[in-house]
């Protein structure tokens, strides 16, 4: 290519304007510029900083199929930030998470949450459904309609009609392993997982039976993602339950 450029260039004086020459010069310019830009842009420093997270949660926040490390990529930023605070401050208990977050500031935790929230990555197809048809039907009914007789709201009432979460702080429910969903609802029943007061999910989980939890988790884990996987914009209608979305102030004051 270099010899072609030279021969064209040598033909420049005395000849008429050669469109090939301009194309080649532009090509070289573009090549030089992109190479330079690559050398100047280091790998995303935030992605480098949070390798402590991605070893378990998957590169760029993808979960291992069937594993206990949930996907964190693309979840609402406030939701992720609150979970980091909960792990650090003991409202969620996981020794590994606590240890990692113990000496990190609120500001840095917010930056980490924003990094993962901004990732836009495809979802793998769901795993084949576990459980019989009756269980799955019961799961779908609870997710979509709840059980008014037991004052159990539908999951979709808060987590969005397409279950991809609602900004700024309600997480999506799809793309998570069944075991993970069961473990979370169970932890809410026993108080091992908590959120800011009033802890609406604790109220919900405590009204669910073991069979309810298994049904809901089985159905959710088997659902494919809709075309738009992003969380819905903030809800205009009030939520069916009062939920605490604000961190406690120092001294335990809300």
């Amino acid at each position: 290519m270099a010899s072609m450029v030279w021969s064209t260039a040598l033909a420049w004086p005395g000849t008429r304007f050669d469109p090939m020459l301009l194309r080649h010069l532009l090509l070289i310019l573009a090549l030089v510029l992109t190479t330079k830009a690559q050398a100047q842009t280091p790998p995303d420093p935030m992605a480098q900083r949070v390798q402590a997270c991605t070893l378990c949660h998957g590169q760029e926040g993808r979960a291992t199929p069937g594993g206990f490390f949930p996907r964190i990529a693309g979840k609402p930023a406030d939701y992720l930030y609150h979970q980091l605070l909960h792990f650090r401050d003991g409202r969620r208990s996981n020794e590994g998470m606590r240890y990692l977050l113990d000496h990190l500031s609120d500001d840095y935790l917010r930056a980490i949450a924003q990094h993962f929230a901004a990732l836009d990555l495809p979802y793998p197809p769901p795993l084949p459904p576990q459980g019989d048809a009756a269980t799955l039907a019961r799961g779908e009914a609870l997710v979509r309609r709840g059980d008014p007789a037991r004052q159990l709201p539908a999951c979709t009432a808060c987590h969005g009609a397409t279950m991809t979460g609602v900004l700024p702080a309600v997480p999506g429910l799809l793309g998570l392993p069944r075991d993970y969903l069961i473990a979370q609802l169970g932890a809410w029943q026993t108080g091992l997982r908590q959120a800011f007061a009033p802890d609406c999910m604790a109220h919900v989980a405590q009204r669910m039976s073991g069979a309810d939890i298994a049904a809901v988790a089985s159905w959710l884990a088997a659902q494919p993602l809709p075309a738009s996987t992003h969380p819905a914009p903030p809800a205009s209608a009030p939520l069916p339950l009062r939920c605490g979305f604000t961190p406690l102030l120092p001294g335990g004051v809300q």
Partner: protein
Amino acid sequence: MSARSPRRPLRWMAGVFIAGLALLAAVLVLELRAPALPPATEAPSTDAALLTRGAELARAGNCMACHTARGGAPYAGGRRIATPFGDLYAGNLTPDAETGLGTWSAEAFRRALHEGRSRDGRLLYPAFPYTHFTRLSDGDVDALWAHLRSLPPVRQPNTAHALRFPYGTQPALALWRMMFFGPGRFQPDAAQSAEWNRGAYLVNGAAHCAACHGTRNAWGATSDAFGGERLPGGRWYAPSLHDPRQAGVQVWPAERVLALLRDGTVPGASVAGPMAEVVFHGTQHLPEADLRAMATYLQALPVRPSEPPAHESADLSVLDAGGRLYRQHCADCHGAQGEGRMGAYPPLAGNRVVTMDDPTNALQAILSGGFAPATPGHPQPYGMPPFRTLLQDAEIAAVASYLRQSWGHRASRVTSLEVQRVR
């Protein structure tokens, strides 16, 4: 020689023994009997300078770290302190009248810090480091008291200690104190500079560095103030401050010592684990002059290299496996030659954590990963991934052995058993 004479020394010895026992009993009884002090009558201080000094001293002593349960109200107590003698639960220091220090007077607080006695006269366990706080000046104790009284009162009843018999009894504590505790304020050394004296006062008083870095005897008392010690539970090792091959800073520039205490990191070294807690909640908040004084004192500690154990080489096959694992999991960040990357990943070649005789902290770094503390000087630290779930004990032993015997390192190998102990 008469037949009776051999019995005379026996009788004499028995007499001395009984007299000794009686004396011991008398001292014990005296130790155990101290008056309860009357409730506070004075109003809390509003002197701004005093309150600032008290807040700084509380930071230097990192009182909050032990006296705050995870996610709990600051200073309201409840955190479990594991010791080889059983578990203790830190008390509520907020001025709540029923469950905290609301009825304590300045005199009672001073007696607690200087003599290790509660307001009601009971002896306190030395997990509350009054063996160090006894060195604090009256003025500083009053400042600390003013600070604690300025906190919002939190009603949170104390949790009873769970020490094994006989350690939980007052006579056992009295005996321990007779052997290992002598009250007394800090005495400046006229031969040293004012800065050194300030550093000595902070390091040995409020900051109570020897509580972790001091070697302890079988009774849990400090036998060598900065000789290094494994922390209870065995999952961390507080390195010797006398030994430049461990955490001694004698040959560091003073600025580097100061920066490590302020920022939690300097090129080539970061704090981790319990020391990260000290920096995050404590030293990063201290005035620079105090950090400089502490650095001056620590740098002047006599150099006393610890005796290395007999060198044990790892098998070549283990080193091979360790090298493969290193290239697979570690070299992308720490470099093929352990050179690290400035500002992001610490070098492992020449790193003291890697080559220290006790491999506990290196193993903990591989198993648990972690971030250096986030401080204004280092607000977004790079995190090391925890390899606990990815690598087996034997693999971690191999990679640790490889690190300890590569790039000119001459440290002993690590076995799977040691990894299991730390895991």
